[in-house]
């Protein structure tokens, strides 16, 4: 038995789950319908796949949610996990699940997958015969992904950086790296049985004034950490920046560099896809405007040639959307995508060159770190502020980078902190910023956060 397999046996020996039958799971995955694999859909579809967000405590409510989504012609179903499960607190999840079932109210903000178990969940997933994507935010997702994969969920979102810096205050970062290594390896193993399991990184991060250079660096690093463990299908992602031009530039650069670095590290056989998140920042308290915002980001997704788009709803500012509002958003997005065909190729040489330089500059510093493994180099780079995201709640984040928008809403470095972009790149960024005399940076930031309000 390999070391990994021994660890897996221990992980699944958990009082909250029934006996975990690895052989049966292996057999299930080997024979599973191709339709469950998003990697298969990516290969055989030229259209942008549409995926909403969503999850409810009970099996029945998720089943209904999926029905609603299917009627709206969804391409990829989401399974959003509740926050107790995310923190490995299966006891509370169990209690809240029974309360939810008994009283017909939602006592959890997502689906407690571990408690439901793979035997039950698999029924639903094979019933709809549609790819499902696991949306969680769990630093230690080992048991969760075992159950997910056994259920037929063949896309796993997250990563040691992107599910940590925006989602946690003090979870130890080294543990996050090691637990995610486990996730990558299990995905890699199963990828040999049928179509590949797809891994997806979470590019939106804190969803607030994130500089594209940092986002792309993190995407590329999580990609490399994943491919390194044998994953063969990976999605990099980012969210609408607030500037159509910056989205286009980001897309062109991330597509080019993802392929470049994957090849450079010897992973020419891996497929890399691009996922675009509709606006992830503060939404207006106005459903009409929210619809307009969502539609605009759908148009941008088409223009940048994303492979998948993850949708929001008109209820975003108000609260978790009903299944109806959620499905409506999917239907509208599908409608708009349907009308956008044969779009022109767009770019901006100067901007793309600058962004490419910045990414190379930061990555060079990461790769030059003296540590012996890539994950330790990344770890050190975050610790010493080479990688530093605005508005992270995590104590390890340097918080020295300050970004503001230029007059065309592009996000620019105002302070670079310890991020090792060159003086030339930084000068380019600064040259775009026009703060008038007497303008306070904090007022500008508040205004820039609220750009869509």
């Amino acid at each position, binding site marked *: 038995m390999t070391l990994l397999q021994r660890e897996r046996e221990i992980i699944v020996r958990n009082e909250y789950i029934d006996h975990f039958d690895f052989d049966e799971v292996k057999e299930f995955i080997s024979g599973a319908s191709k339709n469950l694999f998003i990697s298969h859909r990516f290969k055989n579809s030229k259209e942008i796949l549409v995926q909403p967000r969503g999850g409810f405590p009970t099996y029945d409510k998720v089943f209904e949610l999926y029905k609603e989504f299917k009627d709206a012609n969804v391409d990829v179903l989401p399974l959003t996990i509740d926050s107790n499960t995310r923190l490995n607190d299966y006891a509370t999840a169990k209690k809240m699940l029974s309360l939810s079932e008994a009283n017909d109210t939602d006592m959890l*903000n997502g689906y407690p997958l571990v408690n439901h178990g793979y035997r039950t969940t698999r029924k639903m997933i094979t019933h709809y015969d549609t790819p499902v994507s696991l949306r969680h935010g769990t630093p230690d997702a080992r048991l969760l992904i075992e159950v997910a994969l056994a259920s037929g969920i063949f896309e796993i979102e997250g990563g040691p950086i992107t599910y940590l810096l925006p989602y946690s205050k*003090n979870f130890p970062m080294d543990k996050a790296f090691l637990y995610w290594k486990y996730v990558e390896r299990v995905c890699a193993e199963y990828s040999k049985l049928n179509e590949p399991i797809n891994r997806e990184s979470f590019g939106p991060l804190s969803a607030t004034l994130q500089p594209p250079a940092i986002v792309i660096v993190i995407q590329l690093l999580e990609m490399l950490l994943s491919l390194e463990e044998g994953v063969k299908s990976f999605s990099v992602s980012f969210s609408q920046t607030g500037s159509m031009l910056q989205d286009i530039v980001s897309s062109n650069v991330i597509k080019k560099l993802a392929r470049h670095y994957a090849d450079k590290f010897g992973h020419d056989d891996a497929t890399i896809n691009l996922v675009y998140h509709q606006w992830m920042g503060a939404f207006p308290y106005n459903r009409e405007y929210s619809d307009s915002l969502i539609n605009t980001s759908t148009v941008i997704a088409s223009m940048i040639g994303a492979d998948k788009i993850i949708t929001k709803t008109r209820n975003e500012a108000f609260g978790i959307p009903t299944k109806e509002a959620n499905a409506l958003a999917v239907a509208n997005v599908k409608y708009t995508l349907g009308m956008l065909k044969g779009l022109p190729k767009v770019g901006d040489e100067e901007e793309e060159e600058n962004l490419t330089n910045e990414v190379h500059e930061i990555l060079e510093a990461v790769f030059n770190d003296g540590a012996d493994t890539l994950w330790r180099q990344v770890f050190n780079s975050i610790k010493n502020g080479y990688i530093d995201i605005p508005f992270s709640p995590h104590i390890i984040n340097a918080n020295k980078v300050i970004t503001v928008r230029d007059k065309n809403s592009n996000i620019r470095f105002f302070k670079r902190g310890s991020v090792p972009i060159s003086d030339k790149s930084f000068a380019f960024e600064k040259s775009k910023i026009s703060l008038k005399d007497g303008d306070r940076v904090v007022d500008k930031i508040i205004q820039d956060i609220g750009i869509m309000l």
Partner: protein
Amino acid sequence: MKVVTGVVGNDIHVVANRLIDISLAERGFEVFNLGVNTYLEEFLDAVIETDADVLLISSLNGEAEGWCRDLQILKSQYNFRDNVIFMIGGNLVVGETTAEEIVPRFKSYGFDLVFHQVDLNEGLDQLELFLKASK
């Protein structure tokens, strides 16, 4: 005036918290920001330790109710000096409910000022008015 602030529960929405920190300081308050992911007991301890005049709690992810409904009980256990103001704001419940329904409920939990989906500046204006009035 001293204010203890932060985001309650397992909530990691940090953006408003950073802005509140800045705005309070600008309005002349002395701010103790406990950041996101802070439990009610930690808040109350901080109020005692700093001898704060105001406790300003944020909650965005809908968890407020679960974490705050025992405030009344805790208040009676702690020995607060008179006139400490308990204030909460943000997006206080899961799903959609009206402020008319939420405000009285949270007042019954022991909050003096409750703001559901209200801009922070408006909330802070109200706080200052309240402080003036209760002088």
